[in-house]
């Protein structure tokens, strides 16, 4: 079921958290809401599930306007950031709660609970209370509770934050599989860009209550609209160089490095710019040599990560296949692939 936020605004008292947000999540699509803490991700989710009424604007499920519909009638499954399990109920009762309030026969509930609990690997914990579970186990109970009544819309507020790396990978694909199988429209709120990129069809990046860009993960990686988006995606993160435009080229500092870049034709000389260079675009391949000094080296097993300080003090990050010949303190002359860099104006806009 399609979700549409139409000029959605939300303010608490006199503070506007979200203003005129437009967002469409296609039927059966899984969208990631990615953004820094406090940018309004949870607030958006709460509006979709009906806990917060929008200050203005409309919310549509399919073609049905649900703006004024109480949460109970929206058929939305939510995994809350703080789990919100009922402490006085056992795991079984927690998961079965959405069915119980619909007065479904308890034998049916028991069976469905058992099925979904196996799915999230908590089948042997059904008799426990939330206080007797680890964080990750609680999270899976919350997930099971959100999924059990086959909601039209699934909202996940950082559902995997407390899991260990292995379980997180497993749950990622599990949630994605479930979502695809059932065709549920889902919104996943996360801080973790890897999670967003690996699980979702599209990513919406939010910053202080606004959606900066919506795109598929690869589009967004290759074609960020602002420096904020570019800095948010990618691990290790992109590095920025500060410089000026000069005759269609990017010039770093006084008489420093000069990079001819196609996008810069027509930009007046002297405009302050910043150049985004992803670590994989600085290293052995590429056309323009850059000299610097390695100040930091780290191996990640298959790849090595280096921080290189340029003569003017700015830092470029580089990721390369494992090699043993470079150590911190060494001077290097590596190549920069200028065609793959991004140029941003002073206000962060991509040029």
């Amino acid at each position, binding site marked *: 079921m399609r979700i549409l936020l139409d000029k959605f605004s939300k303010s608490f008292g006199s503070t506007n958290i979200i203003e005129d947000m437009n967002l469409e999540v296609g039927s059966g699509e899984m969208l990631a809401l990615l953004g820094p803490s406090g940018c309004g991700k949870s607030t958006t989710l*709460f509006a979709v*599930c*009906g*806990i917060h009424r929008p200050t203005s604007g409309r919310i549509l499920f399919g073609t049905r306007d649900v703006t004024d519909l*109480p*949460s*109970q009638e*929206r*058929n*939305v*499954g*939510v995994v*809350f950031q*703080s789990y*919100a*399990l*009922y*402490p*006085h*109920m056992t795991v079984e009762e927690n998961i079965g*709660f*959405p069915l*119980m*309030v*619909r007065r479904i026969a308890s034998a049916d509930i028991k069976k469905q609970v058992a099925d979904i609990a196996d799915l999230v690997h908590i089948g042997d914990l059904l008799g*426990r*209370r939330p*206080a*007797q579970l680890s964080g990750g186990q609680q999270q899976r109970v919350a997930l099971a*509770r959100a999924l059990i*009544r086959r909601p039209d819309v699934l909202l996940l507020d950082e559902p995997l934050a407390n899991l260990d790396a292995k379980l997180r990978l497993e749950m990622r694909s599990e949630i994605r599989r479930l979502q695809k199988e059932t065709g549920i429209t889902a919104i996943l709120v996360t801080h973790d860009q890897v999670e967003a990129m690996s699980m979702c069809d599209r990513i919406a990046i939010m910053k202080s209550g606004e959606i900066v860009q919506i795109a598929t993960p690869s589009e967004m990686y290759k074609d960020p609209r602002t420096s904020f988006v570019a800095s948010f995606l990618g691990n290790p993160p992109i590095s920025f160089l500060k410089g000026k435009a000069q005759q269609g080229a990017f010039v770093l500092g006084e008489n420093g490095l000069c990079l001819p870049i196609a996008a810069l034709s027509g930009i007046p000389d002297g405009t302050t710019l910043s150049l985004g260079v992803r670590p994989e675009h600085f290293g052995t391949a590429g056309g323009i040599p850059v000299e610097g000094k390695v100040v930091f080296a780290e191996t990640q097993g298959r790849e090595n990560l280096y921080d290189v300080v340029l003569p003017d003090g700015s830092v470029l990050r580089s990721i390369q296949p494992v090699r043993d010949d470079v150590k911190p303190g060494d001077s290097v002359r590596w190549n920069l692939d200028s065609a793959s860099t991004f140029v941003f104006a002073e206000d962060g806009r991509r040029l």
Partner: protein
Amino acid sequence: MIAPAAVMISLFFLMPVILTAIFAMTNMSTATGISGGAWQVTQGAVNRLKTAMPELANGIAEPRFVVDEEGLAALEALKLKAGFTTELRTSHMGEVFPSRREAERVIKALKDRPSTREVKQISDLFNRSVLNTRFETRDELMASLKKLGFTLTPAEQDTVAKATYTGWVWTTENFRIIGNSPDMAQIFLNTAFYVSVTLLLFNVSYALFLAITTHYMPASTASIFRAIWLLPRITPVVIYVLLWKWLTWDSGFISMFVGQFGYPPKNYLLDSAYNAWFFVILINGFIGASMGMLVFSSAIKAIPQTQFHASEVDGASRWQQVRHVILPQLRWPILFVTCYQTLSLLASFNEILLSTRGGPGKATEVWSLAAFHTALNNYTGNLEYGLGAAMALVLVVVGIVLSLIYLRIFRYDTLISKPLIED
């Protein structure tokens, strides 16, 4: 740090209960006093003796006349004819007459012929009746009786001593009285009725109702409601009850109001037992409900907001939210309020004392008020400390037993959360 606390606890918490228990095992009253007593053949003592020793009882009650030195000395002091004294001493010394008539017959027969007035005067001097005489020790009483011609076996002496002792004694009689008296049974039923109805209707149910309804109100409206419901609690009880009296008096608001429709004015508070209970329960209920409301409100506030959010998106209606999310998490506060309010309803009687004084008749007399009336304040003037203390002790025991029962019912053990079980 333990020593001062222990002193305080034993002095102010333990001592009253222990003293009550000690008093409860005595028959102390205004009549006996709380220090030692004396031996006195009162009419009451005679009555008590009537069943066990009817002869002695009758004899003791009668005046007795004995010719002895004491009487003769008094006679000499009267300066009547000297012959009276001499003759009585020589021929009648030590004689005991069971009645005035017999004594006077002998006096009349004296050679010096006393006049009728003198006969009476003389006989008075030899009156040795023990009725209403106070003896400081038991031996004095026994010596006196012996002189009067009552020879008693040691067992009989015990009975007499017990019947005539005016001080307090150790006894379990109080509990027998409490157990057997139909008055006490009635008071017990009154108390059970008063406590359970006030507790269930107001202190718990109504308080819960207020707490839950204010929880679903906007914050500012809710605090206004809570403040209003707190008023009975913060108003001095004398004034608060006075307001109720003003409402229910014959010239009060209710009378004035229904007077408009032609009903004659009457005192609604005391006009029937039914009305008296109605108002007593309202007066106490409104005070009690405010405390429960506060406790329950803050307990509901302590439930994380997200649980309400979660249950809403899970599809729970308001009622289901109350039933499945709020109430189960209020088990401990409900237990606390039930326990606390049971005890305070059992023990406090000031609202009843100020409003109905237990009336009309003894319709609204509850246990604690009856104990107060028995031990400290009643119309006959004989304050029965011992009996009152025994009643108070019953209250303490009932309170403890009820608390234990509540702990069981609410399964206190499960309220204490279990530690995390390791995988």
